């Protein structure tokens, strides 16, 4: 009986484990499930924007127009197998673009509406010297669009996830594609067949 009880109690006790929380550096890479994570988002955004900024479209524009190009980030479609928060990816790209100091950055359409509402409000309520006039917005010269695709190959407990991020910089004047960027990530995930 003692043995049966020992086994039973052990089985009950081992069924659950206490929650453990540890604070970690946001830059630290932690892969838990193998899904797209903050590190993927940050690294892909930084690498692709670095690539975009090193290509001739930027210097060509600066030479012809004698100013920095204004860029707007359009839509990035998530066509992957995962619920990827595209907003964090877009924010990472915006940060990398703005911090480069080589392009001007204009607000996306959703933000612009809010800003226009604020200008309207200023027209009514702000002191004359501090009001911002309508119709003075800077138009973008280029739009960055993209999509995230995945191919998943799974068999039993093994899985290969292939992510492909495609970004395109389009000249808003004539719809020319001036830069095409691509970043690929491949992950091999092997789930344990046995757990404690």
């Amino acid at each position, binding site marked *: *009986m003692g043995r*049966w009880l020992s086994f*039973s*109690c052990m089985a*009950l006790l*081992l*069924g659950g484990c206490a929650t453990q929380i540890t604070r970690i550096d946001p830059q630290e890479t932690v892969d838990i499930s193998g899904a797209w994570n903050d590190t993927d988002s940050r690294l892909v955004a930084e690498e692709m924007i670095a690539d975009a900024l090193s290509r001739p479209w930027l210097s060509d524009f600066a030479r012809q127009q004698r100013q920095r190009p204004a860029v707007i980030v359009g839509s990035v479609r998530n*066509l992957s197998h995962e*619920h990827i928060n595209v907003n964090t990816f877009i924010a990472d790209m915006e940060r990398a673009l703005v911090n480069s100091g080589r392009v001007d950055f204009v607000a996306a359409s959703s933000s612009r509406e809010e800003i226009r509402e604020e200008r309207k409000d200023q027209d009514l309520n702000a002191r004359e010297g501090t009001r911002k006039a309508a119709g003075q917005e800077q138009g973008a010269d280029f739009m960055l669009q993209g999509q995230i695709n995945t191919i998943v190959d799974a068999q039993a407990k093994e899985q290969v996830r292939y992510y492909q991020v495609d970004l395109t910089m389009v000249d808003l004047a004539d719809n020319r594609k001036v830069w095409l960027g691509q970043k690929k990530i491949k992950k091999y995930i092997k789930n344990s067949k046995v*757990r404690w």
Partner: protein
Amino acid sequence: MGPPVIHPPPRRRRPERCAALLLVLALQSCSVSQQQANDLADGLQNAGPEQVLGALGKLKAQQRDRSQRLMLSGLLKLLSGDFEGCILDLETAKQLLAGVQAISISETLGAVTINETLRVYAGTPGERVLLHEVLALAFVLQGQLEDARVEILQADALMRTLARGDALDGQVASTRYLGGLVFELLGEWSDAMISYRKAAEILQQRGQHIPVALQDSLLEISARMGLDAEHADYRAAFGDRGAPLAYSRGEVIALYWDGIVSRLRQSLLAVYVPELQQTVSLALPYYPARQANARHLTIRCATAQAGTQVLEDVDALARQDLKAREAAIYAAALARVVAKSQAVRAAQRDNPYVGILTNMATLFTEVADTRSWNVLPSSIQVARVTLAPDEDAVTVVGAGLPGAMTVPVVPGSKNVLLISSVSQRTFSHVF
């Protein structure tokens, strides 16, 4: 000096007795809580999802039942119109289920010594796929087609993992159909065609009738994509419906959830074995015989009408899943009988009273695992009706509803409706 006082030796407390009692009490309270959660599903048809959801929230849940509770609450929230709550619960349940698919040593130990309810709820293959389908539907009803697309892709990956040769383990036709619909609404015709084709293949393999809505989609998209040979095959199989209709037409795509899936019951066998001088018990889960046949709805427009047809027999899918795991359940039950019998014999040798107590403990702890996603519909049905150019309402009638329902629609648009016989409400989104 008086005679020496002889104290009797202190009674040796047997920790086993206390442990056995505590173990039995703990396990009984767990099984009672699981039983109460199961009973709630029975009242769903009469009480409605909101009331059952409230009652479910008051029940205490063990950590190992958390995924099941989230699946129950998520579905009830969908039927109550709380799509965001549904998505939150089902996404959490999905992550929990993904984390417990590996075989657990401690839980297996518990299953072969005490009972199967000590396992963390891992869902059946059919339930895991349907989880993606319900999530996808919640996203569709919120107008979030790209998130619905993600769920469909995940369901596809899962179904490919679960497929074993020609067997239909974990293959769900309604999930494939919904995938086709999502791709169609996104204008991704090639993927829509593949999904509809797979839905039809599953139904054909099962020997099930292909609903007219699916037949129409196969005919229309194969023509649209210029798949002439395949289109000719469908025309030969489904009949000549004339020229394919323009995609820009207004349409109602009605998904009807009829009834409630059967819930698992416990079959308990307890026999006194004179040779062993103990009562041996065995509890196994089973599905009772089906009581009701599928009921259908009719969607009436000004110029046309269509009856809903069964796309997925969820009840049959649940029974198929139980059948697939019967061998493992029986093996664990047999091991449990031997383990418990040995424990009682060891206790009897030690002390006959402890033997009786242990025998009682083994009887009380013998409980079948009757956990399931028992608020799913019994069947998932579909119908598609083309709207007249200015039509702004359709009428829905059927045995599962209290009376005729008038549902507003947007002319010239794709109106996706979810109608449930349980909530007797209609949810829709216009694309």
